[in-house]
């Protein structure tokens, strides 16, 4: 029997490709607010486990969940809220038992660096000097959901509705503020810290429920043991130190 040479070549090439692509690779889908610290944590993890590489995918927690629900090859999911993770558990995408909380955050109101005056409380946002207020799209962005809850409790949601600009993720809301395209925006304390002098911190917003980030291995992932190891690493002292340095808060 003669196997065509081209076929052998193609097959061996495909095999090599598959080996290269899967050897020690872990895909992590993380909330947009985890951006910079997650990159550092990934570098730390790769240092400690030679041969392992982490692929990081950032987005709004809700968007990440939809990607996984639609079959995206993800090994670890880290969201900015309990609600999205709960939806993942209910959809059978992650195991409730494997889920761990690893860090907390605070919701703040920020203003562009050029802002002349700072609001004293949320009610000031109803004033004429605040024409546009950015927050994450509540349907898919946890930071937006926390902001909506805070505004609803303050009885301001209906009144502010015409001024609200919905961002695709919390970093976009931050960018809108930093560029001066909106007059104020709801972001995490960690986002405000990352923006430095580009935004002014106006006030801390009580979000209602605590903002606690959970992570879990994705059931359909190809490497469950390594995924679990990375989730544990997120909880370890070196990771926590990186996160605290970026403006997150201890659990």
């Amino acid at each position, binding site marked *: 029997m003669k196997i065509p040479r081209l076929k052998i070549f193609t097959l061996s090439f495909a095999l090599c490709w598959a080996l290269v692509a899967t050897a020690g690779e872990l895909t992590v889908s993380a909330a947009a607010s985890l951006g910079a610290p997650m990159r550092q944590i990934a570098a730390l993890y790769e240092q400690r486990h030679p041969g392992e590489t982490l692929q990081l995918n950032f987005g*709004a927690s*809700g*968007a990440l*969940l*939809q990607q996984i*629900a639609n079959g995206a090859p993800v090994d670890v999911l880290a969201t900015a809220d309990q609600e999205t993770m709960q939806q993942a558990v209910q959809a059978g995408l992650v195991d409730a038992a494997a889920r761990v909380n690893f860090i907390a955050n605070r919701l703040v109101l920020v203003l562009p660096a050029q802002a002349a005056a700072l609001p004293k409380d949320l009610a000031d946002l109803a004033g004429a000097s605040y*024409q*546009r207020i950015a927050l994450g*799209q509540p*349907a*898919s962005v946890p930071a937006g959901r926390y902001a909506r809850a805070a505004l609803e409790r303050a009885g301001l949601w209906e009144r502010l509705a015409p001024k*609200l*600009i*919905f*961002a*695709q993720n919390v970093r976009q809301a931050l960018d809108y503020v930093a*560029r*001066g*395209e*909106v007059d104020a925006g709801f972001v995490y304390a960690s986002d405000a810290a990352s923006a430095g002098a580009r935004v002014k911190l106006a006030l801390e917003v009580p979000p209602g429920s605590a903002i606690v980030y959970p992570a879990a291995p994705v059931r359909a992932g190809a490497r469950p043991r390594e995924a679990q190891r990375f989730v544990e690493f997120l909880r370890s002292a070196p990771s926590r130190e990186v996160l605290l340095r970026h403006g997150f808060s201890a659990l």
Partner: protein
Amino acid sequence: MQGAWIPLLLSLKVAGLATLINLLLGVGTGYAVARLRFPGRDLLDAALTLPMVMPPTVLGYYLLVLVGAHGPLGSWLYTQFGIRLIFTWQAAVIAAAVVAFPLVFKSARAAFESVDAKLEEAGRTLGLSEVSVFWHISLPLAWRGVLAGLLLAFARALGEFGATLMVAGSIPGKTQTLAIAVYEAVQAGQDDVANFLVGITSVTSIVVLLAAGRLMPGRLPRRH
């Protein structure tokens, strides 16, 4: 599903106005580049075609930097007229017009170039002014090609997403066009809304493309 029609109407309004802008700008520049000889003509042609090949996010960023609060045009508009463009439906029109412009420009240029120069020359020898030559000879002969370009531009404007999202955001009922409403529905896992929106987008696009196909210059009977 009641509210799902709002993004369609908004998309039609935005795409319609963007096409109207392109009718003036695209036909004007198309005619100028087809008929005038001047240094840097090829460079101008390339620059005007650029929006067709550049990623819409790049255009969106250019627009954001240009008409944003700190941009040269944006800050001028604000201090002179108190206009803030970002996050308005007008910004969506600008984004759609820029992205779809090359389709009108290219079609118009090709259509004007296919007009027999002898016919225009004949008009001139009979005493017509340049303006009359354009209105009574060039434009009527090039009209079908121009119209096909306009319909393609309308279809492209209807589907514009990247640049629009960057400069107009996604405000329900104000700047949330069809393409962006689909994106939001998928992100939020609202598959029923997404299915409905995708359905009406597909039907609308097919209707526009069928109309454009019927007007394509290739289907014209030979003129002479």
